[in-house]
């Protein structure tokens, strides 16, 4: 392998992705911080309160204060806890929650093409000739609005997030305290119950899309000029409800039902370790929204791609559409929290196994039948 090819590959597969990853991780952390503020503000206004008002204008600096507090507060490890597992459990929760964003397509495959062609010239020490610059800018992994595009992205997302569940159960166990352990068991039972229905709901979309790559799924929606929400509405409803349950959001927030379990699996956690669980929870929420947008709401596509009189909207870049849709999702998540009461645990398990699972299975069979009829 000669030196130029080596530098080219290094740029495409390591350096440029690394820059993207750092940007994504930083933006995501910031977004999570402000998502908590948004949540507190919205819930407050729904309940006719003001919410945080002290730190900054209308509490705008509150997330920064919270973040600092998490770092500075004493980090208590209970005397009876298993210190090793107590420490790694939050990390087991957090890393998968962030890793999902490695395959989320924020924008089209040529999103950074012009930008790369323009910026690579700034680094004379790389000694890139015109053709190499062109090749790098044309490479989908370097110029795509995503970190990487793999053939099994959907499976990757599911398997990575299933690892996150282990963090909760291990954290609850390591605390060696009654409420966290019960919270962790409930939490895990709930998450695995809804994961099954979630899997079936996603298979409904996959039957239509015919690919496991998230980028290709959006491209297929572009080709067919149709968002999959219009062909798989039932799958979307199931996906959204199961998404609420998977992320432990109201009305499925039994794992941390304050009135019965104190704080759920993270009762014994404080300081920085608690903030890791907290970050993981909100990162999961954003991840579910992002995957929902990709599978059902056309990812980076503008609304109604088939209506030509809306073509004037094309000047808005895809990534803006994508983030806008994700924001709408998150807004609904918070809205639901402000509106609905909490389920009882037995109700929750029964809904998961006796309603959502059969409906999701029926959806798969009916979808397969309809596709067969039109084939």
């Amino acid at each position, binding site marked *: *392998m000669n*030196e130029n090819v*080596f530098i080219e590959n*290094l740029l495409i597969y390591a350096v440029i992705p690394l820059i993207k990853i750092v940007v994504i991780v930083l933006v995501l952390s910031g977004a999570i911080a402000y998502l908590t503020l948004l949540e507190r503000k919205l819930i407050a206004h729904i309940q006719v309160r003001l919410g945080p008002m002290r730190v900054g204008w209308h509490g705008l600096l509150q997330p920064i204060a919270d973040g600092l507090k998490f770092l500075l507060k004493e980090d208590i490890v209970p005397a009876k806890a*298993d210190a*090793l*597992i107590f420490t*790694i459990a939050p990390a087991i929760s957090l890393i998968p929650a962030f890793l999902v964003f490695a395959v989320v397509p924020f924008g089209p495959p040529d999103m950074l093409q012009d930008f790369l062609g323009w910026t690579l010239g700034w680094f004379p020490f790389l000694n890139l000739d015109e053709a190499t610059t062109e090749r790098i800018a044309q490479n989908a992994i370097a110029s795509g609005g995503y970190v990487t595009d*793999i*053939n*099994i992205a959907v*499976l*990757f997302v*599911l*398997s*990575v997030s*299933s*690892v996150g*569940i*282990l963090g909760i*159960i*291990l954290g609850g*166990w*390591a605390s060696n305290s009654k409420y966290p*352990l019960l919270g962790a*068991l409930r939490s*895990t039972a709930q998450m*695995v119950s809804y994961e099954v229905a979630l899997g079936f709901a996603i298979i409904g979309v996959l039957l239509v899309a015919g690919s*496991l790559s998230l980028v290709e799924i959006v491209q297929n929606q572009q080709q067919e000029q149709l968002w999959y929400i219009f062909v798989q509405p039932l799958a979307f409803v199931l996906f959204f409800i199961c998404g609420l349950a998977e992320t432990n959001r109201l009305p499925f927030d039994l794992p941390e039902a304050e009135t019965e379990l104190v704080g759920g699996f993270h009762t014994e956690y404080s300081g920085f370790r608690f903030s890791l669980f907290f970050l993981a929870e909100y990162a999961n929420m954003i991840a579910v929204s992002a995957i929902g947008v990709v599978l059902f709401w056309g990812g980076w596509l503008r609304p109604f791609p088939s209506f030509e009189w809306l073509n004037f909207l094309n000047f808005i870049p895809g990534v803006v559409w994508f983030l806008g849709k994700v924001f709408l999702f998150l807004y609904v998540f918070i809205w639901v929290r402000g509106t609905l009461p909490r389920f009882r645990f037995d109700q929750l398990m029964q809904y998961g196994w006796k309603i959502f699972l059969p409906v999701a299975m029926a959806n798969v069979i009916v979808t397969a039948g309809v596709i067969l009829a039109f084939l």
Partner: protein
Amino acid sequence: MKARPLYLLISPFAMEATLFYILATMLVVFAILTVTAANPVRSAVYLISALLGMAGLFFLLQAEFVGAVQILVYVGGIMVLFLFVIMLVSVREVETQRRANRQWKTALVLGIVLSFELVYFVVQGADVFRIDTISQDLIIESQTLNTETVGGLLYSTYLLPFEIASVLLLVAMIAAVVLTQKQL
């Protein structure tokens, strides 16, 4: 001799080999820790790490579908089941029990015999691993899409095993209910 430029170390082939040894070491170390850990939950954590290393090996073999399934089923499914079972029994008792029973000498001898057998057959069949003798079909196969290939084979050539798998799953479901029925 001219010094080899450093970047040659990062050639895809060398990188694959390095990754293989990292993952294989991880797998072996955590597998040993799984067996030797006193606390069952610690043991489960080590097993999770070993399984992740194994999934990494599958990815390295370009079997991305199998790798993802390995994580999804074993780490995300079976390990949750294991942890539940561990929490169903009293961990305290297990921790104080002797970890090896009286059969350990027999087990050791058998283990050594079996590993020699394994090494012997690997050495005997070393030709299988030679790159230049790999049949052309395999190379073509590896360049097509993984999931599609698995699906194509599973739903045509291996149709019967696939349907039998559903019977096995049915047995597992019924067995779970029957085993726990008294408590229900």
